[in-house]
């Protein structure tokens, strides 16, 4: 009996009771479709995370002062002065001529109330930095312009503000050229940032960016900076740059590797962490879907058992005509496998259609391996869950099977 004939005869068995077969098939189909689709959703969200992070700039290395919380002035003064990163340290790091470093941008940050004549906004993230900030990563200027190096030198009271903040403080017109008051100090708005994609609870568009000297002078004091954003020459040099920076910083701060006055990291490592969590999310979804496939498989066992009972007479006839135990076993296994394979194919089709739609804001991206995997698993489930009913059919004694009505 050729494979084709086995398939044809199995199809005949499957179509003998159409409604029952369709219902069983539906169970497998839903299982297979959900495996593929949920894996695709997990994969889709992983890719979104990846592209969001790579948008931040893969060349960027971030050095954070340890225990420096919001970078408040109080804490900076209590820290041991020779072991904190100050703007001076940042300047010397930039001037050190490290081969893989193209720029060093120090940042201080705090959180204060910002107001205009029309409105005010609490807990706005205030960042003091240098013009290099606008070149690192993706923080671009939307309208107006960035403050200049000269503004930093003169501690000018100018600021670039985020879009949300701009519309909150100036609901009726442009923020450009207007004055905002930060904790009592007036600043002139010279630019408004491009809209940023926000992740998490903080609104990346509710931010004030001003010259670092001014922020230090008015709010945080001239102690430690909270962050150094360092641009590597290219994305391949990130690790080398990180090593250089670590050595140089330790020299500048006069400390050993064991001292932990700062932490250093880059987008690549952030990316890896995010990918890991996205992957475990995908696995979790896959497991949930696999359970539904399992339930579908149990449905196959059930329907095959009913089928074997119903077709006892047929089994008897076949045995009388010379069917061996193996032939009967093969027939019922082939029927179970055909049933699940059909369900699998329909499930794949349903998943591919479903993957065209956004699911909870995530565009599913079908994993290449998930289709053959789901199909293979569905056939394997057919065989696995078909073994028991098929073995029961094969073990029937012909004389008893023939006596069935």
């Amino acid at each position, binding site marked *: 009996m050729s494979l084709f004939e086995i398939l044809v005869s199995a199809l005949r068995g499957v179509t003998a009771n159409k409604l029952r077969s369709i219902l069983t098939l539906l169970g497998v189909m839903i299982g297979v479709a959900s495996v593929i689709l949920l894996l695709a959703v997990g994969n889709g969200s992983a890719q979104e995370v990846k592209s969001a992070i790579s948008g931040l700039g893969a060349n960027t290395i971030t050095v954070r002062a340890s225990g420096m919380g919001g970078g408040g002035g109080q804490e900076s003064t209590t820290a041991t002065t020779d072991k904190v990163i100050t703007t001076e340290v940042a300047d010397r790091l930039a001037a050190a001529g490290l081969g893989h470093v193209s720029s060093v941008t120090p940042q201080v940050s705090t959180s204060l109330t910002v107001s205009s004549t029309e409105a005010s906004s609490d807990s706005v993230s205030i960042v003091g930095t240098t013009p290099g900030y606008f070149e690192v990563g993706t923080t671009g200027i939307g309208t107006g312009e960035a403050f200049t190096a000269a503004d930093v030198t003169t501690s000018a009271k100018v600021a670039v503000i985020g879009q949300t903040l701009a519309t909150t403080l100036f609901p009726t017109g442009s923020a450009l050229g207007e004055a905002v008051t930060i904790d009592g100090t007036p600043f002139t708005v010279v630019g408004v940032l491009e809209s940023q994609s926000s992740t998490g609870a903080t609104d990346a568009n509710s931010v004030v960016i001003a010259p670092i000297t001014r922020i230090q002078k008015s709010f945080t004091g001239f102690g430690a900076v909270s962050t150094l954003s360092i641009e590597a020459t290219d994305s391949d040099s990130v690790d080398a740059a990180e090593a250089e920076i670590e050595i140089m910083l330790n020299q500048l701060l006069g400390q050993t590797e064991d001292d932990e006055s700062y932490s250093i990291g880059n987008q690549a490592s952030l990316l890896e962490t995010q990918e890991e969590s996205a992957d475990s999310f995908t696995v979790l979804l896959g497991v949930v879907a696999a359970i539904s496939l399992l339930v579908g498989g149990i449905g196959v066992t059930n329907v095959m058992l009913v089928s074997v009972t119903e077709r006892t007479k047929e089994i008897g006839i076949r045995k009388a005509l*010379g069917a061996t135990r193996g032939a009967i076993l093969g027939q019922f296994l082939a029927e179970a496998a055909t049933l699940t394979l059909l369900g699998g194919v329909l499930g794949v089709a349903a998943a591919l259609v479903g993957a065209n739609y956004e699911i909870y804001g995530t565009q599913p991206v079908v994993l290449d391996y998930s289709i053959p995997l789901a199909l293979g698993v569905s056939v394997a489930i057919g065989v696995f869950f078909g073994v028991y009913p098929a073995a029961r059919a094969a073990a029937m004694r012909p004389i008893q099977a023939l006596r069935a009505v």
Partner: protein
Amino acid sequence: MTLVLELDSVQQVYGSGEAAVHALRGIDLAVEAGDYVAIMGPSGSGKSTLMNLLGCLDIASHGTYSLAGHDVAALTENELATVRNREIGFIFQSFNLIARMSALANVELPLIYGGVGRGERRTRALAALDSVGLAARSGHEPQELSGGQQQRVAIARALVTNPTLILADEPTGNLDNESTDDILGLFDSLAAQGKTIVIITHEDHVAERAHRVITISDGLIVDDRLNTHAPKAAGTAVHA
């Protein structure tokens, strides 16, 4: 003449101890090639048990049964399946065609289990259907055929493997008079071709067509006679 089948003091006991039922109490029987034998008996006489033994659907508790030279009791399950496939052509009272399979597919079935290739299978199945006059109906499914036609398909299925023994269990039990004559006519011509036929029946007019009539009662052979009135009588009774 060669013996197709031989039973030697065959007993069949179901259950054990007090509840044991002795369906066959010691049957000695030999059937030669080309014989047309009818086995008669009232219900409960053991003729169905005998039929199951002859058809290798069941194994005797005691005694030996050899079919076409095989000692049936010594065969494995798979070997029994092969013997049923090659040596026996079954014809049942209720036709036992498989539903939703065309007449042709039903007739091909024993050849599939016999491992015959696709092309040859088709040719032989069509020839068998032609020999029972149903070549034109080969594409029809059992439910589209009359009782007589279904039994003719079943006969074609029994003939297709060219078996040593054709074993028929009340083949006309579910048929009207016209179809009965039709089927019995087929058996006559098969007998004339030299096929070995064992037919189990409780109807006299069916048994009258056979060359040899064996009557069993209460698990024993009580009568074994040659039927001189049978058309084209050719067989000889051999008492084992």
